[in-house]
């Protein structure tokens, strides 16, 4: 099947609900409406309103009640309509979702998935365009996954639902309808915590994820065409736990790295990635690890966001500086 990201995620939900009657979907407008981005389309018609729950409009209780369901043994898949609204449930995620295994010394665990659309580039309002994965990646006890395309999104969502631990699952709005990909009919999973080398190269490593993967790949093509540079591109797929071995292996080969992310720069994922590369490949490094990230300003309004979100020319420029260091 050739599916876009929305349809691929929908397929994962459908098949996981088919596989396991304990899987529930809960969120605002996920039932009759099928979700504001249609990721949960038709699920309520198929599985009923007890299993695909149109919840009242309250993020903390969506996550908080899902904690209770997960402790009971169910597998809730929660949708937060936009990641910018998740601060109204952040306390539930930090205080309880991430800690239940510790707090109860493994008497309970909290196997739930929190899906959230994130990121800019879709001409949306404030709180509808941010990229704030760093908050979740920083919390012990959570897994933080960001797919980059329909096929890996479908496989990673299935893995997240089956995972015994809580997974924060970011979906790039810019990718929802961006491209179609062949997605196998049969259920498919991908391991959480593993990055993929999606383009091999020997001069430089570009590290990206989510909507920035495409930017990194286009920058790699531009570098080859203009400079003859062969850039390796790593798609992280999982932000936390970070695949440090994959990062170190690549940089030991290339000696240089540029990290690209849509989150703001300071204390962002790039900082941890750069530290990890320094720890794992210090003696191979020929240049400081560069970061191409959103500037450290609050959301500027979509009329100006293109200036802040990394694009191909910025990545190419950072790569050239790194190569010339």
């Amino acid at each position: 099947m050739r599916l876009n990201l929305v349809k691929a995620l929908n397929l994962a939900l459908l098949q996981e609900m088919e596989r396991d009657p304990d899987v529930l979907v809960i969120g605002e407008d996920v039932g009759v409406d099928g979700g504001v981005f249609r990721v949960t389309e038709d699920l309520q018609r198929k599985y009923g309103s007890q299993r695909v729950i149109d919840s009242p409009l309250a993020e903390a209780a969506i996550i908080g009640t899902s904690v209770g369901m997960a402790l009971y043994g169910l597998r809730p898949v929660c949708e937060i309509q936009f990641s910018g609204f998740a601060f109204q449930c952040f306390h539930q995620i930090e205080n309880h979702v991430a800690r239940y295994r510790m707090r109860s010394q493994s008497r309970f665990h909290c196997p739930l998935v929190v899906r959230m659309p994130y990121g800019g580039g879709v001409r949306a309002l404030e709180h509808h365009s941010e990229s704030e994965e760093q908050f979740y990646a920083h919390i012990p006890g959570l897994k933080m996954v960001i797919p980059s395309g329909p096929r890996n999104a479908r496989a990673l969502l299935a893995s997240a639902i089956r995972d015994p631990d809580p997974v924060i699952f970011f979906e790039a709005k810019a990718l929802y309808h961006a491209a179609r990909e062949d997605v196998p009919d049969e259920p498919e999973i991908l391991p959480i915590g593993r990055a993929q080398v999606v383009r091999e190269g020997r001069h430089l490593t570009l590290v990206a994820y989510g909507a920035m993967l495409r930017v990194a790949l286009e920058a790699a093509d531009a570098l080859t065409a203009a400079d003859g540079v062969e850039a390796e591109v790593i798609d992280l797929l999982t932000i936390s736990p970070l695949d440090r071995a994959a990062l170190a292996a690549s940089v030991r080969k290339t000696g240089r790295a540029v990290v690209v992310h849509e989150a703001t720069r300071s204390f962002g994922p790039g900082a941890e990635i750069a530290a990890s590369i320094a720890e794992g490949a210090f003696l191979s490094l020929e240049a400081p690890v560069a970061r191409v990230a959103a500037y450290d300003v609050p959301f500027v309004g979509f009329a100006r966001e293109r200036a802040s979100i990394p694009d191909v020319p910025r990545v190419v420029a950072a790569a050239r500086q790194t190569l010339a260091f």
Partner: protein
Amino acid sequence: MPRTSLDLAFSIEHLSILDADGQLDAALEPDLSPDELKRMYRAMVLGRRVDERMVRLQRQGRIGTFAPIKGQEAAQVGSVAALTPRDWVVPSFRETATMLWRGWPIEKILRFFSGHLEGGQPEPAQRDLPIAIPVATQLPHAVGLAYAAQYRGEDAVVMAYFGDGATSEGDFHEAANFAGVWHVPVVFVCQNNQWAISVPLKKQTHSRTIAQKALAYGFPGVQVDGNDLLAVHAASRDAVARARAGDGPTLIECVTYRLSMHTTADDPTKYRSEEEVAAWERKDPLTRVRAYMEKKGLLEPGLEEAVDAEIAEAVARFEAMGAPDPLVAFDHVFAERPPELEAQRAELAERLRAQGGAADAAPDSKGTASAATPMRGQRTTRR
């Protein structure tokens, strides 16, 4: 367009069966067997005496900070006694008597309040959540448990505990709203003990009762004399029966009083008068139930001594427990440790090994520079 009056007739019941003077409303007296009464009275005595002992243990530095329950024994025992073991209890952090009723060993509670998370671990079959400290955050969990029970077609009821201060939190209102919309088998037990640390109820809410807040969410609320074991129990039995019959949630406001401090780190003389405390001491839940038991000829001689002996044995078991193994922390983060966590665990294990296995020994902090410390500009590695 005229103004019309909607047909909304609200009233809130206040239930009192055994008052502070020991007067009994026999018509409302719940049908409890002598054994049930003895068990509940014993649980109240145990709750009081464990609490008093814990204050002394804290003052002696043998346990850490905790939240005393003194004065709230009837609210806790009267409510939890309406449950069966297949029901769920969702506590906040001031429910020692409730937890003892549910079978938490005294030494486990002491262990929790001496900084060991093992003390928060329920037994495999025990349907109790661990103590929850961030105020009101446990309430949505109770609603989710109740939803799951209903989804699975099991008739378990969930009882959730919180205080008056919690009713100002968003999570209380969100939980109550979800419970009402979903019509789930949950009983919200508010122990309105008049004080949220230093803030009195009148600064917490402008509602006349807490019970009435349930009405806004479409389910019944009832106010009871929270120092009256019989009233709390009668209201709780009704609420549990309603929940089990599929009639949805109930909010029970137990009007009680925290006779002791908020926690052992608090000094209540700063914000409330001795006269106020003395007035509530005259309404002590234990005094009136003791008189009630005496009238019925159900007082067991030697009860206090037996309870004290039970506590002493538990304290001895608690103090005989071994030192904590810091490595255990890495066992309860994920089902399987990712490589980074494994590496961090190995680092700590190595550090502990180097210290000769003394788990709580401080790492060497002398920080003396060794001869191998490189100077600025000096490379000690080769590329």
